[in-house]
């Protein structure tokens, strides 16, 4: 087996005595301490911090507006621009979900739906938020672009049952999504 020898630094006697290095280290940490007490910590602006240190005190100030586009929060179901339920109850997300958080009960497409070309539609779609690990695999696997991870991260419940989100809640949270999915287009 090939290996790369790690180059160890040569220590001088002064380094080995350790006291000087110790004092240097203590000075660094003390600098951090003093700066954060004065409210002048490094990176404070980048983190949008207030008060002591570089942190934001959480419930009062939030990072929400600066969450990146790729942020993975709670999964939600979305409707198309035309108000169509995108989910066709293929259950791929249910199979791929590593935490087994998703449970789909397939049903027939409701007669008053705008598009009747699909074979199935979810009768019930449940995501257990206590199981969800926010991996985003459901979003990745969905052939219909029906499930998306939102930026919602504050999921607080007082009861285990409350943590299970049903179809209505998921559609409410997801809203409509722009961008056409032409698969079930009338022209096709």
């Amino acid at each position, binding site marked *: 087996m090939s290996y790369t020898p790690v180059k160890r630094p040569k220590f001088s006697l002064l380094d080995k005595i350790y*006291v000087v290095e110790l004092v240097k280290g203590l000075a*660094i*940490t003390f600098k*951090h*301490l003093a700066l*954060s007490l004065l409210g002048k910590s490094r990176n404070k602006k980048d983190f949008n911090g207030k008060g*002591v*240190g570089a*942190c934001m*005190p959480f419930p009062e100030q939030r990072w929400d507006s600066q969450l990146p586009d790729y942020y993975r929060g709670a999964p939600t179901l979305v409707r198309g621009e035309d108000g169509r339920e995108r989910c066709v109850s293929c259950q791929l997300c249910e199979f791929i979900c590593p935490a087994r958080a998703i449970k789909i009960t397939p049903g027939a497409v409701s007669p008053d739906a705008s598009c009747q070309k699909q074979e199935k539609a979810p009768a019930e779609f449940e995501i257990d938020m206590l199981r969800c690990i926010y991996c985003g695999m459901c979003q990745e696997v969905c052939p219909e672009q029906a499930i998306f991870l939102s930026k919602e991260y504050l999921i607080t419940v007082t009861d285990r049952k409350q943590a299970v989100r049903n179809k209505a809640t998921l559609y409410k949270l997801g809203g409509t999504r722009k961008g056409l999915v032409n698969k079930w287009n009338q022209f096709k």
Partner: protein
Amino acid sequence: MSLFDTIWNWCVDLLHNDIWFYLITTVVKLVLMFAVILAFVVLSVWIERRVAGWIQDRPGPNRAGIPLQLFQRFGSKEKQPLKDLLHFFGIPETCWIAKLCTWLRLDREIPTFGLMQPCLDGGKLFLKQELTPSYVRKVYFTIAPMLVLGPPMVAAAVIPFASSVSTQFGEINMVVANLAIGPLWIFAISGLSVYGLTLAGWSSNSKYPFLGGLRATAQLISYEVAMGLSIIPLLMVFSTLNMQDIVQYQADNGWTLLPLWGEGLSWQRWALMAPLALSFIIFVTCVFAEANRTPFDMAECETDLVGGYHSEYSSMKFASFFMGEYAAMVIGSALVVTLFLGGWSIGFGADAALHSVCSWLAVFCQFIMFLIKLVAFIFFFVWVRWTLPRFRWDQVMKLGWLVFLELAVANIFLTAAVLYFVK
């Protein structure tokens, strides 16, 4: 004669009796010392977490304010629960009770700067379910936490927290037990806490706690040797083992590490600084090792031992280990302060001057000074913890046996030479 006079006279008579005087003053001092140690255990947890936060550019625990949460029980979850509370009891908002509450800032959270956090954590641990695994050796499993928490508390008995006061009934020495063997008492008693760690590791009947127990034993024994040898130069200078006399000497002749008054102004005293500073470094490092603190927290090193010797413990038994560690840190700090930083002495001859004004005032100031020094050294403890990474196990052993032991022995001869040739 009024009832008050009768009680007063009875108290005076009681205090004139030597045995009762001794008993009463000792109990008062004991309670005071105990309260200070326990308060400092809580305080040092707070200092630890706050300073850790500041060093890492965080605020640390700064919530846990007192009454808002309580009032929310009664009122709604609105922004001003006080209003609802007043309304609930039918008190008009303009009456004096409402004004008093507002003045006391009861209408919002009273800021405690997170000081309540350790207390609440303690409460949480107290109320948690106690879980004793079925495979442990129950008797030793139960007594091990006591053996960790007990010794530091007992060891505190010989630490003087102020000078002595002479009253009309007799002299009160502001140390619980004025033994002639002060530092040795602390070494002996705090050395006993190693039994707690060892037994906890062994009785848990599980791999990682056992390794933690073994490491703790080996480490504590190794560093006890260097620790005992490192203070011998100091004792050669003081030529006494009584802690009160040691501090008195420092008050008169300058602190060990800051000889700026009294006899300390002579150059001979400064010639002693080299060995004394060396023994300070060795001693402080050994205190870190004895208190099982980072960089020497081998016994509970999470990366290789899960939780070390207290992996199997929960609830209040775990809290005893936790408190024992901090109590050991407080006692270690008190010992360093007493031996090297002048204990209760204010310095620059202020002790004698204050004593000539009013000895009770002097004692009070000295007590405050002692607490200030204690807090400062506890801060140093925490500061080092959040600066240095943990050593490797073989490095710890090597440092103890091959470096500090030799240095301490050499230091004794160095001090003897300085004392012989210079003075």
